[in-house]
């Protein structure tokens, strides 16, 4: 069976040319970059090449990029290291973030709260955007950081990052952004946007899993989160994941080269997918911002049916998707992001995320559009909720 992958926001395949760049560094050129001998020097040189490529993708300087094991570690590092350092040195202990951050931010903030930090979780409007006045009003004497994600992973909404950066700068507050979903999908210039720290992850941009980076603006203090050897200018210990870093670098290079084409293609496919569903299925809502969104993200709530049942049904016909329903994750609560939009359970339980990517074709979309109404209808026919409104409303 042909398998159609519409879950590019969960992870992406590694592109062939990226894997090829990595391969020699597993077997022949396997040195430890800290070693003085040729194996080590070769590895070190390639790691720094990769660093340059990653820096370029976000308009940063090569010295401002620190490699990590992924987006989650970058988020943990940026928040925790800064928090304790700020409290120790400046007696500041307040962070502003939003209700729709990734758990890498939210759970880190919860842990910090338990340890005496204060956290403000900003509300979002129905499109998932924070309100800039709210942000300004929440700034206090002891605020040391604003951490607002660039692009939301579920609903795709792009936050007003430039305005946030401006507010942060005017108030002398650090601005961190979780840009895991943004990098490679929107144009980013950390200088233009006044970003002080930015988290990224390779496996969302066709690079390998298990590697990411934290951008830290020159002059911004960052203490280590993982202690040990002197790697990454003594900021992040642990033998460098050389092949993966090289892959991440190549992925960044390709992402930059293709950015406009990538955005255009994804936007076209996304609109086709979204319109095709919205025009052929009733009782659906389209979540996130209509324009200011991830080019590949379609997030829908189907009434009367449950997300996991949709996922399974799609999987059976070869389509891979994602859902924010509670049942999908085995959690008690459905997606905190959908809840923050003000949606009731009758919507949030029926959520579906379809994300298109570089290998998605128009035929893939046609196929999904053909299957989707059938799947939705079958599940609705089984639903006691649909039964009630079927006569009058359909």
């Amino acid at each position, binding site marked *: 069976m042909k398998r159609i992958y519409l879950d590019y926001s969960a992870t992406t395949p590694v592109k062939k040319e990226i894997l090829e760049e990595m391969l020699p560094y597993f077997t022949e050129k396997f040195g430890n970059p800290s070693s003085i001998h040729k194996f080590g020097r070769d590895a070190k040189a390639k790691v720094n090449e990769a660093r340059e490529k990653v820096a370029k993708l976000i308009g940063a300087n090569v010295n401002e990029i620190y490699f990590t094991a992924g987006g989650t570690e970058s988020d943990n590092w940026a928040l925790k290291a800064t928090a304790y350092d700020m409290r120790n040195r400046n007696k500041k202990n307040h962070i502003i973030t939003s209700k729709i951050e990734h758990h890498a931010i939210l759970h880190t903030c919860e842990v910090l709260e338990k340890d005496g930090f204060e956290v403000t979780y900003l509300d979002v409007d129905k499109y998932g955007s924070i309100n800039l006045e709210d942000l300004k009003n929440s700034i206090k004497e002891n605020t040391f950081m604003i951490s607002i994600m660039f692009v939301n992973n579920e609903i795709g909404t792009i936050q007003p990052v430039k305005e946030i950066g401006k507010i942060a700068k005017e108030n002398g507050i650090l601005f961190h952004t979780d840009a895991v979903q943004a990098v490679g999908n929107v144009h980013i210039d950390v200088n233009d946007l006044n970003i002080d720290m930015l988290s990224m992850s390779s496996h969302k941009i066709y690079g390998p899993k298990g590697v990411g980076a934290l951008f830290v603006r020159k002059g911004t203090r960052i203490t280590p989160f993982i202690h040990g050897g002197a790697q990454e200018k003594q900021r992040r210990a642990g033998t460098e994941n050389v092949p993966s870093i090289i892959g991440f670098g190549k992925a960044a290079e390709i992402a930059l080269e293709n950015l406009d084409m990538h955005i255009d293609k994804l936007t076209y496919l996304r609109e086709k997918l979204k319109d095709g569903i919205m025009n052929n299925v009733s009782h659906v809502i389209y979540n996130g911002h209509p324009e200011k969104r991830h080019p590949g993200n379609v997030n829908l709530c189907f009434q009367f049916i449950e997300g996991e049942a949709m996922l399974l049904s799609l999987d059976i016909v070869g389509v891979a998707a994602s859902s924010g329903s509670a049942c999908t994750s085995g*959690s008690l609560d459905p997606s905190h992001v959908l809840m923050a939009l003000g949606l009731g*359970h009758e919507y949030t339980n029926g959520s579906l995320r379809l994300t298109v990517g570089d290998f998605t074709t128009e035929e893939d979309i046609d196929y999904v559009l053909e299957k989707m109404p059938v799947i939705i209808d079958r599940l609705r026919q*089984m639903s006691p909720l649909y039964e009630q409104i079927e006569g009058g409303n359909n």
Partner: protein
Amino acid sequence: MYNDKVMDHFMNPRNVGVIENPSGVGEVGNVSCGDIMKIYLLIDDNDVIVDIKFKTFGCGSAIASSSIATVMIKGKTVSEALKLTNKDVLDELGGLPAVKIHCSVLAEQALKAAVLDYANKTGKHYPELDGFEPDDGHDDHGLVQIEF
């Protein structure tokens, strides 16, 4: 994640639908719990459940549990059927992932609600239902949260 039997009952659920003039109807769960099951019973004079239909709003496990439960119930007397536990449903399905166990409770509860409806209509008494509260939620979900 799910075994073949679960997937079969999810994709080809038995006894989906409505009974026009049912002996009893029961609905449990609510939308904020993530699943709802509605059972229609047709019970003959010998107290045998001669027909059963269901509708379920819920995940794959909820639908599969509903389906298999109706198969197990059909043809049994009401008292026999009331002996059905979520453990029986689980065993018959060949197991569910840990975080999905709660879905197997749904059918047991819905059946009881439908029989209660029947008992109320007919004035019968089933000691198995003593203490049963049809609106007891089943908030025994795990706490696993996954996101990407």
